[in-house]
């Protein structure tokens, strides 16, 4: 086998003789050697650093820098233009007093609640249905059908729902008249707007969540299931005692994803109602977007973002702890 950089002892490498000149006196030779070794390592692995360059450059510019700036800008008053005045915690104080912000939080909690309950239960329900199918072919067909729903761009689906919610030509009013409900304004109605947006997620079967849960169900050892059948365990009992505990990890994952999604997403709110009517459907993400791009108050918008980040981290942390203890 040809000697390569990996197989030769360190001292045999040419770099050892042309090492960096460490002119610092008073340094113990131990530290001196360590420093040479690190530089030598880095030189030896120059390929690695080169390979990493595109990724790190991109992330540095478009991820790390904006994050730092986001946190920094929340301490400034910056209303467009190029002048940013440092105002310390003033933005935060204003935010704590801001009734609109609290209204948006209240609205967001409805979305979060829905996303992490119905949004978790429906994929679980469908996954169980799929799981009980005897024919593998039927499983494949239905699974593919459910996943196919992601092929249509999200915005398009939202726009179609806007059409459906149109009080005049949309289908919703004709549909609910079948149940004896009078025509509503839906997205324009103060009492119906929030619910309308939530309902546009019908039937709440996120294809990716579905795939995750279904894969988890398939990973349950067959022996467990057979044993339960032999002991005369009913289906419902089995689901409760075997399935759910075995897939608890994935369920928790989806639960947390649901919370994160409910907390920060504002596509639907932006496109369907732009927060209206009034503040009925305003959510923090949208409030931040409007502060920045409609009202040009970038400093305040960053403050909202900062606080949202903290809230999200807190929510995630808490739900992580809660669910874990439920499983012990």
């Amino acid at each position: 086998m040809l000697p390569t950089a990996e197989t030769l002892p360190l001292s045999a490498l040419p770099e050892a003789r042309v090492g960096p000149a460490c002119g610092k006196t008073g340094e113990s030779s131990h530290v001196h050697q360590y420093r040479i070794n690190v530089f030598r390592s880095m030189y030896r692995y120059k390929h690695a650093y080169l390979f990493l360059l595109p990724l790190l450059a991109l992330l540095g510019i478009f991820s790390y820098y904006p994050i730092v700036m986001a946190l920094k800008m929340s301490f400034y008053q910056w209303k467009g233009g190029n002048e940013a005045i440092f105002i310390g915690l003033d933005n935060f104080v204003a935010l704590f007093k801001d009734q609109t912000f609290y209204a948006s939080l209240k609205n967001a909690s409805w979305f979060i609640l829905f996303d992490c309950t119905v949004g978790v239960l429906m994929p679980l329900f469908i996954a169980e249905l799929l799981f009980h199918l005897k024919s593998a072919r039927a499983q494949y067909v239905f699974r593919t059908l459910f996943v196919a729903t992601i092929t249509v761009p999200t915005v398009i689906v939202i726009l179609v729902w806007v059409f459906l919610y149109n009080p005049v030509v949309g289908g919703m009013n004709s549909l609910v008249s079948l149940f004896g409900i009078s025509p509503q304004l839906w997205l324009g109605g103060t009492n119906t707007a929030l619910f309308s947006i939530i309902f546009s997620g019908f039937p709440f079967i996120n294809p990716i969540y579905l795939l995750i849960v279904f894969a988890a169900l398939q990973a349950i050892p067959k022996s467990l299931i057979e044993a339960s059948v032999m002991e005369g365990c009913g289906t419902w009992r089995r689901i409760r005692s075997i399935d759910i505990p075995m897939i608890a990890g994935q369920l928790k994952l989806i639960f947390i994803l649901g919370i994160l999604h409910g907390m920060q997403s504002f596509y639907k709110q932006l496109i369907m109602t732009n927060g209206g009517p009034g503040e009925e459907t305003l959510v923090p993400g949208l409030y931040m977007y409007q502060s920045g791009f409609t009202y040009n108050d970038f400093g305040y918008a960053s403050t909202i973002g900062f606080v949202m980040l903290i809230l999200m981290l807190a929510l995630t942390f808490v739900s992580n702890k809660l669910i874990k203890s439920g499983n012990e």
Partner: protein
Amino acid sequence: MASRASKKVSFVLIALLSLFVLFSFFPLLIMVLTSFKSKMDVSLGVFHLPKAIQWDNYSRAFETVVPFAWNSILIAVCAVAGVLVASSLAAYAFARYKFPGREILYYLVIALMMVPTVLVLIPMFKLVAALGMLNSYAVVILPQIAGGCIIAVFLLRSFFAGLPEDLFESFRIDGAKELRILRSLVLPLSKPILGTIAVLNFHSSWNDYIWPLVTINDKALKPIVTGIMSFSNDYATDYGPMMAAYVLASVPLILVISFAMKYFVDGLTSGAVKA
């Protein structure tokens, strides 16, 4: 008797599942149905079948949609290419080389998965404005690559790390350089997972709505999901052609994903996602 009971169960299951599939596709069916209607048909009600198919809707929509569609395709292809290149190189480095700072850098990259998009929206806007990148394709493509790489590196690294060492040895004996190894050995083996990553990124690039909305004002450059909003306003209440435009806007994405559906589903169900 057991088989009769299980047949009944199967029937109920299939009926239920079909119902839910119908529910899932319901908005899309309405969309396609409405796209064939004339103005009068639309006013009759959503569930009415059109008297005659209005192909005219599609020809009107076609002209408006096509330029936007080309923008989306260009952006998506560039974004996918960028993600594949940058993440393969980086994941390879993370997986096969033990260089100083490897762990720290890797966790720094992965930690970005935690960051919500909302937070960086505004500073990123200010940044690209200062760089003079507004109203260009690059302003949309580059951030998409950055975002897509995070998950891609995560997936690829574990895959690369799992490749057996012997394969690499035989290549090294022949004196192959590192890039060559990557190109001729690793990439062909990684086709399935690269396919999954390509599909995921094409999908998220196509769906990217808010960022192009705030960074591109020039109508000629807008990707389709953003352009279609201004387009909706042009058509006001003309729902037939509007729906036709929506259908056309969905077609490329449907094609791409159907093509690669196998990769996508296999990737997610192989148990790669664990607790």
